[in-house]
């Protein structure tokens, strides 16, 4: 008897949860409402089967419960009944499959008027490429990727010269225009998934895959990677902004083309040196840092990282969060570098300063620090803490240890990395959660102190 009650109870609970569930498909923001309809049809058909077969079972268990004076019916088979059940099941299955296949037929055929946008996946970041005025994307290849050509553009392809390269974690799409998303991976499998769009597709390195949709509701949506791509898979987040055509055009016009990017001169240390005087006041003539002034060592740090951080300070991405005690000092200093070229020159100078070892101030359990560092931090920042440009991870080894501790605490508490303009900040806020407690942070930094 308890079994019968349990089955009936579970059926009721399942139906109630389904009807009352606060967790359901997110409000749709694309043309794929036909997918939602297919899901609903399937819920009705399968729900009917679920309820009726289980209740029938419960009834059978009740009606034919054991009675020592009764005997079961001897009936090896009943062909007529079996044929009926087979036919009815086939019809039910067909009623679910048919709409599914019709919708799929729409999905595989991209409308002729769809415009193309490329999403690029890499461990554990996004970037995006839009065709320029010619409407055609140029050739690109993972083998061509260098620090100066992070998109792997083929410089000889004329179609690529006007391509618009967006290396932030945010892409934009115009409202109500079908778009064919081309998906290209630099390294491993990834997946482009936006819950509100309903459709998703994997990236396959070595080939370009695609999906298509028409965004129908303006807004900002999360892009998640939904194919396991390594340890920071969960931290690979992007955003897609859907907006009207005019705003979209404005945004697109502000992005740099491949040609413009090529034209940007490399930072020149010689030209940067004079401007460094401002920095030297706190960070020291040799960029060695000054703990008393809360200025970290910067000498030997990668130039792209320094450029980006100066940019962040200039534009209020860093140094504006409540709780960031010393960041605000950097904002006015960064403003003294008026142009991108000046920033690049200073950064080039800083990274070229001959380094001298810094005083260590943090102590901790080095073995524990190593155990924490190697599988997590060391993947992006490199096992010897030298940083990896390809994943935008700066050098850690030899930098001011007290500064590393403070930044880890900032990332952990959201003081740093939470700003929408901080492109790779989310990753750090997410990955730093692997360090539980201040002691773990000290241990990791103590281990970084041992790296050469």
């Amino acid at each position, binding site marked *: 008897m308890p079994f019968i009650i349990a089955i009936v109870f579970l059926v009721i609970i399942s139906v109630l949860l389904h009807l009352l569930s606060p967790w359901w498909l997110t409000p749709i923001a694309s043309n794929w409402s036909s997918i939602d309809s297919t899901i609903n049809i399937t819920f009705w058909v399968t729900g009917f*089967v679920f309820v009726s077969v289980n209740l029938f079972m419960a009834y059978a*268990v009740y009606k034919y419960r054991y009675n020592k004076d009764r005997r079961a019916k001897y009936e090896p088979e009943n062909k007529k009944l079996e044929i009926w*059940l087979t036919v009815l*099941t086939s019809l039910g299955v067909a009623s679910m*499959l048919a709409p599914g296949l019709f919708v799929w037929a729409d999905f595989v055929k991209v409308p002729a008027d769809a415009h193309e946008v490329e999403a690029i996946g890499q461990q554990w970041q996004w970037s995006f490429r839009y065709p320029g005025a010619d409407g055609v994307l140029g050739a690109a290849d993972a083998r061509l990727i260098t620090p100066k050509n992070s998109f792997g553009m083929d410089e000889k392809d004329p179609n690529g010269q006007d391509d618009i390269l967006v290396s932030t974690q945010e892409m934009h799409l115009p409202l109500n225009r079908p778009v064919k998303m081309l998906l290209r991976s630099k390294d491993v499998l990834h997946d482009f998934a936006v819950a509100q769009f309903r459709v998703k597709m994997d990236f396959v390195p070595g080939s370009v895959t695609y999906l298509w949709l028409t965004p129908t509701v303006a807004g900002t949506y999360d892009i998640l990677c939904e*194919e396991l791509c390594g340890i920071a898979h*969960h931290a690979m987040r992007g955003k897609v902004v859907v907006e009207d055509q005019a705003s979209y055009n404005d945004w697109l016009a502000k992005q740099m083309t491949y040609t413009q990017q090529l034209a940007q001169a490399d930072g020149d240390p010689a030209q940067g040196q004079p401007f460094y005087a401002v920095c030297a006041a706190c960070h020291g003539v040799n960029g060695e840092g000054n703990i008393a002034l809360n200025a970290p060592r910067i000498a030997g740090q990668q130039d792209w990282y320094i450029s980006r951080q100066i940019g962040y300070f200039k534009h209020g991405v860093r140094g504006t969060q409540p709780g960031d005690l010393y960041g605000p000092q950097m904002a006015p200093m960064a403003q003294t570098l008026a142009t991108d070229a000046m920033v690049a020159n200073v950064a080039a100078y800083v990274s070229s300063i001959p380094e001298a070892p810094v005083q260590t101030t943090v102590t901790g359990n080095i073995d524990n620090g190593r155990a924490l560092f190697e599988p997590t931090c060391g993947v992006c920042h490199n096992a010897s803490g030298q940083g990896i440009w390809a994943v935008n991870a700066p050098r850690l080894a030899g930098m001011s240890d007290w500064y590393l501790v403070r930044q880890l605490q900032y990332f952990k508490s959201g003081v740093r990395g939470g700003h929408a303009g901080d492109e790779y900040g989310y990753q750090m806020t997410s990955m730093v959660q692997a360090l539980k407690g201040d002691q773990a942070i000290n241990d990791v930094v103590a281990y970084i102190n041992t790296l050469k």
Partner: protein
Amino acid sequence: MTTYLPIADQPSELHDPHTFISKYVWSQDHKVIAIQYGSTAVFVGLIALVLSGLMRLQLGYPNTFAFIDPSNYLQFVTMHGMIMVIYLLTALFLGGFGNYLIPLQIGARDMVFPYLNMLSYWFYLLSVLILLASFFVHGGPTGAGWTLYPPQAILRGTPGADMGIILMLASLAVFIIAFTMGGLNYVTTVLQARTHGMTMMRMPLSVWGIFVATILGLFAFPALFVSAVMMTFDNLIGTSFFMPAVQSLGQNVAHTGGSPVLFQHLFWFFGHPEVYIVALPAFGLVSDVLSTHARKNIFGYRMMVWAIVAIGALSFVVWAHHMYVSGMNPYFGFFFAFTTLIIAVPTAIKVYNWVLTLWQGNIRMTVPMMFAMGFIFTFIHGGLTGIFLGNVTIDLPLSDTYFVVAHFHMVMGVSPIMVLFASIYHWFPKMSGKMFNVTLGKIHFWATFLGTYAIYLPMHYLGILGVPRRYYAIGTTSFIPDSAMALNANITQAALFVGVMQLVFIINIIWSLVKGKPAGHNPWEATSLEWQTPDTPPHHGNWGEKLPVVYRWAYEYAVPGAKDDFVPQNIPPEEVVMLPGAGKYVNRSEEH
């Protein structure tokens, strides 16, 4: 001139073991090998259960446990999945129940190749040891997900990319060798060593399920074997089977031209039949449990056999439904959605026939019966959600979300495990000669049945919401509300409860082995041959002097006019005791 002599008539060549070692360690007796397989599988399954508990702790209470970082989280996920699918379920159903039941249910003295059978177990144990060794090497076990997709499986950036993946692939290769030795044995034994009168269409469905599953395995595992070998080559000697030219963490790899999707095709060409390698034995075993305790013949036996065969055949043409969003040519979606939904028809027939077996039965609410009926419920649930994912369109939003996790745990985790428990409780009296403790068995059933549903029912809705799987932490998103996080904590509580309650099972088994009451030869009053052995537990050689002779199918329950409500397969028709005035016994099961 030699004349053909059926195996059943050949003089017995059993070498009775005399020492402890030859009896229990290097044993060639299928029953001992079955128990060796079974206990090893249960042991390694408990490790996987603990791993799932650790995963759930992180998901339910993120940022709380210092010993779970993103890297070992993925290692827990991977090892949990791989152990459960291959080293527990496959090994326990085929190596365990296959070994135990095939000779006993078809009336043979042992497997036809006992020595090979012994080797099969020792290779299996070796594969388990290699797998477990990966927990102790530098970098730990692989965290590539149980699907081991390249390129990430062998690139830095994935945990265990140095030693872990090598050991994983080596362990799989050894497992497959073990499986092949066992599998050839099961198939040959079923085909060649059936006793007199045991036609194929009189075999219990357990044997049918195990037999067809083994054939699937023999065709499917080679695909995994070659992919393991090819990936090992890619990893160690620089070939490019699965490796295109990519850039990994700022460095160009020395590969070019390989196809990651090729691996996925090979993997799922194994991986989908693998689902049925687990499911078909479960279908068979549960049919026998249901029929016995419902005191009624299995409904539509012939249809059940053909459904097993049809599902087995179809399982080889549906593999790419795991790859709808993999970036393969999307036009394949039409074909694979079609084949996948066709497979729902024979599967549904099986469910109907189980329920119709209960209908007009005389149901004894025993512990194995409760697990078997619990299976019907969980399998209906898991099967129906499969229709969502198999329908290519619906896979677009649901693929890679917790809906998938919930679905395959219902259909491939909970359901087969309900059958495993049903089968263990059902055959334990035969294997040990002792009866288990019924109260503990019922506690175990209720905790497992209700607990697992509390885990997986709500999990589907997280998936519909769009919560992605294989995430160390959900972090902040615009569409996942706090209530989903709270739900995750509840799911974790349920999971930990279910995990701990498995101790009741372990305690019951150990207690019953020591203190259980003698069970007798045939406590369930069952018809199939294993319950008719002269000794319980059966001795070496199973049948004493003479092999049994079979006169009918294995489901002769509630025969009108017969004195008892069951007629064993090996009772000659003239010896069946009839009620006064009922006339002579007639076998009606084979009148079509």
